[in-house]
């Protein structure tokens, strides 16, 4: 069973702060991490590999050269191979261009039975790259997987779909996006991290290494454009009441009655 896991390097959004004056995002000093659900995907890939006889797990990322550290972390978790697709020409990609570029890298990798992605990232949060990648590669897909079982060339996936649980079956090769409920990713061991730096190489592919259609990559290949970003104001200019509790309760009831909100 050969499995490709797509991983994205993201800023740790818990650490992202806003400049109160300009409203701009302060990214400086914000640590970069592996997108959390991509760790679940790696964990699942390692589990599935273990239960099959042979094969390897490859992690694939598109991003700037700094994203290599993310792939090192993946190597330290125990994956066999890491590929970074990186080129200035890919900058500014939306999900269509990102999924296209990843699909062309996967066509170059050639041998795979399964592609695993996170359900969504913590920065772009679209959850679109998985399904779009499946479409470029003409593969069956299952999103938000909470359980994956493989028997021969049949994959069974259990997913939570809003209020229902769906069990789907499809033939490999297939693409599955995993939910963070599927497993608990292993912690990396420090000595493994060090070994990952020493023993295993991250292969880097640039634009020239892939057979790309230039109309589909980077900013020009991205149909969506960010027009503006702004700080969201939640202010209602309301009033503040400070009274004994019983009077507060009285006031609230009056408010409810005045606005005719009470159903009798």
């Amino acid at each position: 069973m050969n499995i490709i896991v797509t991983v994205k390097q993201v800023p740790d959004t818990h650490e992202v702060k806003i400049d109160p004056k300009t409203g701009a995002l302060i990214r400086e000093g914000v640590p970069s991490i592996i997108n959390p659900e991509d760790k679940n995907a790696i964990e699942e890939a390692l589990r599935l590999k273990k239960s099959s006889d042979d094969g390897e797990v490859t992690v694939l990322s598109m991003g700037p050269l700094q994203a290599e550290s993310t792939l090192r972390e993946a190597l330290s978790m125990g994956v066999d191979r890491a590929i970074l697709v990186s080129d200035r020409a890919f900058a500014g990609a939306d999900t269509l261009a990102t999924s296209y570029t990843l699909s062309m890298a996967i066509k170059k990798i050639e041998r795979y039975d399964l592609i695993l992605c996170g359900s969504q990232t913590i920065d772009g949060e679209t959850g679109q790259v998985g399904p779009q990648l499946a479409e470029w590669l003409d593969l069956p897909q299952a999103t938000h997987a909470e359980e994956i079982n493989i028997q021969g060339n049949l994959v069974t996936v259990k997913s939570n779909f809003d209020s229902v649980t769906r069990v789907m079956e499809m033939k490999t090769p297939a693409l599955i996006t995993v939910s963070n409920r599927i497993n608990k990713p292993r912690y990396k061991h420090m000595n493994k991290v060090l070994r990952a730096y020493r023993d295993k190489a991250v292969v880097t592919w640039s634009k020239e290494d892939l057979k790309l259609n230039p109309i589909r990559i980077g900013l020009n290949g991205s149909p969506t454009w960010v027009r503006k970003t702004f700080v969201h104001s939640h202010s209602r200019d309301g009033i503040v009441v400070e009274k004994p509790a019983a009077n507060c309760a009285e006031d609230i009831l009056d408010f409810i009655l005045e606005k005719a909100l009470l159903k009798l």
Partner: protein
Amino acid sequence: MPVIVHEEKCTGCKLCVAACPYTVISMQEEKAVLLPGCTYCGACIDTCEFGAITFEDFQGRLCMDVALFKGTHVFIEHDNQTASKVSLELLGKARGLADEFSRQGKDQLVTAILIGYELGDMADELIAYGADHVIVVNDESFKMYRTDIYTKAIVQIAGVKKPEILLFGATAQGRDLAPRIASRLRTGLTADCTALEICKDEGILLQTKPAFGGNMMVTIACPDNRPQMATVRPGVMKKYPRDPDKIGTKEVMKIDLDENDFIIHIRDIMASTKKHVKLEDAEIIVAGGHGVNNQQGLKILETLSDELGAELGASRAAVDEGWIGQDHQIGQTGKTVQPDLYIACGISGSLQHLAGISQSKYIIAINTDRKAPIVSASDVTFIGDLFQIVPVLKDKIREYKKRTD
């Protein structure tokens, strides 16, 4: 930037014919030939393995022929009997967009795409809720949602109708389906929008959504590709008031399916056993945060909520403590609600929480801290201890109800 076929390179493999969503390629004497109506989407160029199709005078960025596209289409999610709430909200929003278009001197129809089996009178209901036109695909194969053939059906409809705007609910289904369609149509898709408007100058769709934990908003546009696609967060848009006398048209479409189209098989669908929490539909919500201290504290809020006929909500802090189930969580990573009244008890008002409640008509806060961010986000804040205020309020409401009985 017209598309041209280089006859000498064309091997007659027909891959481009299958890839063209707008069905404008035909084969003549073993060579691909373009018919009128090409949108310049470029799907054929991606597909041809022989480099036999290219754009003439390519300018660095692909620009489709946007003038060919008209109208707003809404994909309807349903359980074969009733349309989901978010689908009706989308119809309501599409009506609003149509009004804006007509102010700009453009007549645009609102079309509902209804796919399923044995759909009863749902099409009429969709008209009552704002659709001008309903496209109905009624076939047993479509009884259950399946990514594969639903994608094919909607791509076929979009290929024939060329909608300018195509909307989906940002539900598990919408977010499974819309990206595949966007890829096949080679167009843009904005995820999880909370506001849609038509740009006054350019007439394009401006799609706004929260980003980075609700700290910021981003507005995204798709100027050069069509349809302009978006998934829209449930609970944000307003339904159009049901009007049974509203007139609309219906059209039945057949989708050509063959067995190769069925690549994902549904083995089982299990309803989740949990009691459904109806926060999205609630008129009043009483919500508790970390300030309720424990599960008992939430029980006190529940008595108030019962007295008001309200639903019980919670901040993530309360959910994380295990005092209440995740399906009660409100906010960026929980539910977006739009009640008439939101009563926030012991909730500080983090941006992530506010992201889920800002559509409320009125917000009342009960908090001991005058400086908590919830204060400026509320219509009225009562500074005080919720354990003293809430029980008294509950009793007063009960008394009032007795008096007026």
